[in-house]
């Protein structure tokens, strides 16, 4: 039995519903040593800002139960460098390219959007990074500023716009509705959850930044619940992420209402995780005699 894995995300055809979580996959070069990254539905690269960013001091990672905290702080080489040296390699791939954009102000978001123009397939607006002092998550935790950032970037954007949501809010579906009103063509969720890990011998946080973003299997039930809530509220497609390590995990997100999923932290433990997730989604569909992945999206039956 042949199954269809193709999904349509805001008018862009992905060959399968699996992409990479921004910031966990660099610009693809490193994982390309392990598998053919053209097999992915899309490659979502690390956050790009107008100017290069050095990020936060180290340690920037702390292990936690079934997950990890990071406080990278959006280290990136800046848009100009990205366009000149990284994008040409990405363009050679037979997959869709999603660029995640970061900024401290709405003007900076707009500037980086204009610099990227239509050179990629989709943009993902990051209003949810917990690791920077200004901008970042500040836009993502308030309906009004999420709406404003989205509509400003949407006006400047020449490609479909995904808005990446923060789980560090009381009602994520309200933020999702606000960005949908602002013109977002899709939403992605969740970014990391703000957390802290303490070294009890030094009586200090492990991260130099004291706090960081929690990711990995530990966050998955929260992410699935949030995808479900957002799916009840908005019509635009949802890209679900947070702890996905297997096809079974991905299927949970699809059933909850995501049209696609992203794999992040799991790839740090198993560099083949992304490919495994794609293969296991296909196997699940075959096992259940479902010939099209689109037929399970949002097909959750509540008790």
């Amino acid at each position, binding site marked *: 039995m042949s199954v269809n894995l193709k999904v349509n995300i805001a008018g862009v055809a992905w060959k399968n519903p699996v992409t990479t979580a921004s910031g*966990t996959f660099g610009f693809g070069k490193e994982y390309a040593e392990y598998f053919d990254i053209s097999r992915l539905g899309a490659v979502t690269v690390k956050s790009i800002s107008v100017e290069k960013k*050095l990020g936060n001091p*180290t340690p920037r990672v702390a292990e936690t139960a079934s997950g990890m905290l990071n406080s990278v702080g959006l280290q990136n080489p800046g848009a100009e460098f990205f366009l000149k040296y990284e994008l040409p390699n990405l363009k050679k791939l037979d997959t869709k390219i999603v660029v995640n954009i970061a900024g401290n102000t709405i003007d900076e978001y707009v500037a980086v959007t204009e610099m990227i123009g239509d050179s990629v397939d989709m943009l993902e607006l990051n209003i949810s990074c917990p690791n920077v002092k200004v901008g970042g998550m500040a836009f993502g935790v308030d309906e009004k500023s999420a709406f404003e950032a989205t509509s400003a970037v949407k006006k400047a954007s020449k490609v479909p716009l995904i808005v990446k949501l923060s789980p560090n809010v009381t009602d994520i579906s309200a933020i999702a509705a606000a960005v949908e009103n602002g013109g977002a063509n899709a939403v992605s969720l969740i970014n990391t959850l703000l957390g802290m890990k303490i070294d009890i011998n030094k009586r200090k946080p*492990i991260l130099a930044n004291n706090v960081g973003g929690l990711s990995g299997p530990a966050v998955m039930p929260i992410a699935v619940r949030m995808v479900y809530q957002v799916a009840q509220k908005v019509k635009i497609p949802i890209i679900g992420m947070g702890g996905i390590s297997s096809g079974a995990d991905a299927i949970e997100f699809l059933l909850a209402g995501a049209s696609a999923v992203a794999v992040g*932290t799991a790839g740090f*433990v198993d*560099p083949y995780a992304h490919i495994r997730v794609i293969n296991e989604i296909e196997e699940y569909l075959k096992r259940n005699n479902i010939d099209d992945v689109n037929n399970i999206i949002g097909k959750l039956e509540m008790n």
Partner: protein
Amino acid sequence: MGLCKLIQKQEIASNIFDFVVETHTGLQANAGQFLHVKCGGTAYLRRPISICDAWDDKLRFIFEVRGEGTRLLSQFRVGETIDILGPLGRGFDLDLAQGDGDIILVGGGIGTFPLLLLARELELRVKKPIAILGYRTKELITLTDEFEAVCEEVKITTDDGSHGTHGFVTDVLADMAKNGKISAIYTCGPTGMMKAVAKIAIEHNIPAQVSMEERMACGIGACVTCTCSVAGYNARVCKDGPVFNAEMVDWGGF
């Protein structure tokens, strides 16, 4: 690399374990590279551990139990398989030496282990190095015979004077730099020690390489958590390093 069988295991000093695994691959390991090891159980992330020795399809690594991950790793039994990724990272450059002076290895504590493979490779391809190995105390001294077999000379220091020279490896190195002819220095150990070694190397214009350590997640260069400031940029210890030229590292931050 995948699943490797543990074929030899020994606790060579208190809480310091010496593992040999069979890889079944033809992958070449260079001195200074590391393995990213899944410790099992509740340890979610892999742990980076330096390669201490390599021959045929065997890899040897030695680690100290310092936390939950390494504690779990120390519980593997001979015959069991360990999930290992690697060899990873950029190792030592064997062609660092300029001129015909001595090649010096400076190791501190668990930082001495990766220098063994380096000493072997230097002996084989360049010339026998001189090793200066520092330990906190006598009980922690390991691998001396193996270093002696491939080194011109092995000088040992202990912080408490319980064996060898009482004092620091950097005192011995500073003396040699003043009085002898050194053509290259390679070092691995605590950051403070490496910083002091780098200072001596730079003062005397001696090419030197350091092996940096940082907490890691992916180990393959994708997550940018493991950085250290090198020539004004946050380089990835796992991919751009762990070995860097000493004069390139921005030591001010340490």
